[in-house]
């Protein structure tokens, strides 16, 4: 009986050491590939590469002609847009506005996601390939940091930050509209999952209370869905490694150096 326990504990120890010495580095290398691939899909130069910014053109409409918009996106900026919209209560009035090249509308979410991605890669870079990990805590710490960055990066794309209508009205992006919209209208471009969304807010006062109607048009942005898939794959890979390490961290006495003294606790 004792022999069986001893055998099992020994083989667990060997497996644990393999995990720390080999598997962690292998997974980190794999992660690095995925994240670099992810970075390449970004339309903005990351990791200091001075690649050209990619340009895309999209059309966002809502039937029947309530909102129509043609946008050019360069990197994380909307460099050009022609927007025509009708408000519900005044169907015959058509508002027109545009964004010009000299004062673009910045999609902060893209930059945020890219920066979080870079942070994750920096964490991976900080591990030298010949470094040997000494404890599960060390790896869990590193994986926790990477997971945090990836999580924040992905969230910044799929969950746009909520802002008050007041903030929106005063935002710098609203000032890039030419000509200005009337005071009771606000628009916002944002990214939600793989879609670029244009939302229109129409303010009105009903019995002294401020209300706003909202309607939106959207279009699919191919590079974002690819980026999101890569983010998700990386997150899962990272989590799987973390789960594996966690299995071993149940055995308190395990560490990569104490080869002979390891004992299974239960």
């Amino acid at each position, binding site marked *: 009986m004792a022999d069986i326990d001893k055998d099992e504990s020994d083989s667990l120890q060997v497996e644990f050491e393999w995990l720390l010495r080999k598997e962690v580095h292998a997974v980190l290398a794999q992660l690095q590939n995925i994240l670099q691939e992810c970075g390449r899909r970004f339309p903005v130069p990351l990791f200091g590469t001075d690649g050209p910014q990619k340009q895309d053109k999209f059309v966002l409409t809502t039937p029947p002609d309530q909102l129509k918009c043609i946008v050019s996106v360069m990197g994380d900026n909307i460099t050009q847009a022609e927007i025509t919209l009708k408000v519900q209560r005044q169907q015959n009035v058509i508002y027109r506005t545009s964004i010009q090249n000299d004062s673009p509308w910045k999609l902060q979410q893209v930059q*945020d996601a890219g920066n979080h991605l870079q942070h994750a890669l920096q964490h991976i870079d900080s591990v030298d390939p010949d470094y040997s990990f000494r404890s599960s805590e060390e790896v869990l*710490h*590193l994986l926790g940091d990477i997971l945090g960055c990836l999580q924040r990066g992905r969230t910044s794309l*799929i969950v746009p930050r909520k802002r008050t209508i007041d903030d929106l009205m005063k935002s710098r992006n609203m000032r890039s509209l030419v000509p200005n919209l009337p005071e009771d209208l606000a628009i916002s471009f944002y990214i939600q999952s793989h879609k670029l969304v244009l939302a229109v807010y129409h303010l009105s006062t009903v019995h002294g209370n401020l209300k706003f109607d909202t309607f939106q048009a959207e279009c699919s942005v191919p590079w974002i869905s690819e980026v999101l898939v890569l983010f998700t794959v990386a997150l899962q890979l990272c989590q799987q490694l973390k789960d594996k390490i966690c299995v071993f961290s149940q055995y308190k006495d395990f560490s990569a150096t104490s080869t002979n003294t390891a004992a299974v*606790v239960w």
Partner: protein
Amino acid sequence: MSAGTNLVVPVVLWGKSAPTHCISCIFLSRDQRTLVTGCHDGQICLWQVDPDTLQMIPRCLLVGHTAPILCLARVSVVSDNNYIVSSSESGEMCTWDLVDGKCREVVKLPYVHTNMQAYHMCGSDDIRLFCNGYYAEVLIMDPFSLEVLFTLSSRMSPDWICALHVLRPAKRKDDVILGLTTTGMVKVWTLQGNESKATEPHYEHESKQIRCLNALSMSCCGGNQRTVVIVCAKYWQIYDAGDFSILCSVQAPRSERWISADFLSTDRVIAWSDEGKGYMYKLPAKKLKGLVFSSVADNKEFHSAATESDTPFLYCVLAVPNDRPMSCPPAMRYHEVSRSGKVQKYLLRGDSDGAVVVWNIPEVTNSQLAQIKQEEFDKPPGMPPTMSTSLTKAWAAMQPSPVGILDQLERGGTPRVPLTASMYLPQQSRLVVGREDGSIIIVPATQTVMLHLLHGNHQQYDDWPPHQRLIGHVGRVNCLLYPHLVHPRYERAHLVSGGVDFAVCLWDLYSGTLLHRFCVHAGEITQLLVPPNNCSTRVQKCICSVASDHSVTLLGLTERKCVVLASRHLFPVVTIKWRPLDDFMIVGCSDGSVYVWQMETGHLDRVLHGISAEEVLYACDENTSTATAGDSGLANPAVHFFRGLRHRNLSAIRHATQRGIHQLQQLSHHNQQDGSLQQKGRAMPLMIQGLRTNPKDPESHILCFDIEALIVELLTEEYGAMSPGSLEAQGLINQSEYEKVFALTQSASPDAGKKIADFFGRVKDKAGDLERSLKEKDRHDLLGRVKDKAGTFERSIKEKDRHGILAKMKEGAETMQTKIQAKAESVGLRASDKSSE
């Protein structure tokens, strides 16, 4: 919470081992009396420092943040000001009072700061915080109100600011902010002092692209503002602030990465690395420019290629001899202070083991430096730290060592078994404790507390108080649940435990027998919960268990089988919410995805991501908030915690801490639809709450003595013992007395009114059977002596006051409510639980 207005005295039993404290951030106050360390688990430890020797002992643990502390800053120019600001990775910011550990202000911003510089800008009366982080602006905040006063934005290629330095140029009245973006764009803002939200936007005045990606820090030399040091992981560089041309550069030592650097003097730089070492350099004088170096100013050489003698000279290394390997890079900070006319320079380091190390940075004169240069050496001279300590050392140094709640079982040389889970059953006045070796111990709570806090004969008894031992788990017991306490629909005798052996055990609490062992999970059990009361009848008899293999099950306690197995979650389960009317159990995972399960059929209804996932979770909160009346459902535990702190509501704090800690264990407490039920009845004179700052820690315990409930309890007993005759004689049961008390309780909390009505009812009925396990005499003893022990935990209540209250109460109970409220006001309960001296 029913115990809302009560005076509660918390006493912490820390146990023999120190809590883990993986330091992420370190700060020494200007007067050198307090060292503050923030950790990755969100706690902040205050250390009491001797300003001369820098010897320190841990004094106080501030609980409240739910994420790693990223930065700490002072709030005032006054050197002995006792406040500090902390900011965490989830965007929470708190202002703490360092004296009593109270949280004075808290906000949660959508902006996460990685760095805050406390700076006294012109045109303001005190410190402003200049913050940068995961956003493209610079925020200027008020450290007391934690309001964003105004922001600085970028006109030219805006990006996250990764390093920031604020300074006032010599002989000028305006302030200059140097910012460096992740892509290496240096920006300069100039502030006149009249900026506000109304004058936005504030754009940079200048910007320049330099070749420096992802910098970590930037600081300007105080004595010669023309030099700036910029630190990246692989190198640090000296720049000329005039045109941002590079003057010199130093690579990181092999297998190390720079974290930050600062100027020791105009031509000396200290840089520190992720290995926890400090490196001191002398800069080549002919490279430097500015007034101080006017003799070499604008010399032609400085753009020339660096020759050997032009590189900074490493003259000293600050390192810890035989340094243990760390599980993450340490937090380090350079601290410069002038005390009694002498400038002292320190390098502080806090590491993953909760150890703090201080180097007194040596002054090396130029002639000494010349000598060092003459000598041939492989390695530059090293210097050990002047002071080093850690939480573990502080614990070991304590005599007697800190008390743990089950220390009585460890007498006579039995090896110490760490406690891993605990639960207090107020109705039975019993404490159930799970341990690392798989045993569950049940002890009478009051006797156990007496044993540790009171001196007396009982301490001589062997094997006292009696304990019950449940043996069934193989390995650590992770969690305990007594479902009957949450809702009376459950069997009174059922106790449930979950362990590292993947098993959930159902016990008969009274007979101590193992009724059933559920083996359905494929990972250790991390959490046990109770579904809400309006579920289907079958689910009502279930408890919910969560395991580290990301599975969730509903286990039928009466039918003894697994009713629903919800697995296939790819990420750890973080929250569980309920929509009983739709028969849905909603599982939220750490990646933000949400799984909706049908409870009756066990089908996965749908999987949601992104905004729709958030909305579904949020909708559950809305449902429950109507049930818990006024309490805003399940916001972040920290929000509750802070609300509790502000209202000095200890039970709320307790509750929130509990929830916060559960969240740490990767699962927020289940939705409190039954919250009101759980809190039903009178407040308990004693509550015991387990405290763990990290899932790996053994548990400490907080004893919460509710003074008001205790007094009511004592009075009940005292009057209960009187005969009707003696009651009559003291005029206690005539109508006027009753009305007097009744009137007095009108204004007070409904809770107290109920209690007093309850107690008078009892007096009148002469219901003598009091079910008390403790003799009244012992109780008096307890109340008196609790103080003595509490004193060692630096409680701020004077013993005299407490006896004063007690005497007054006995006279007639009439002034009870007013007295207690007055005391509660004056005492000012502290939220933090001080560590023993």
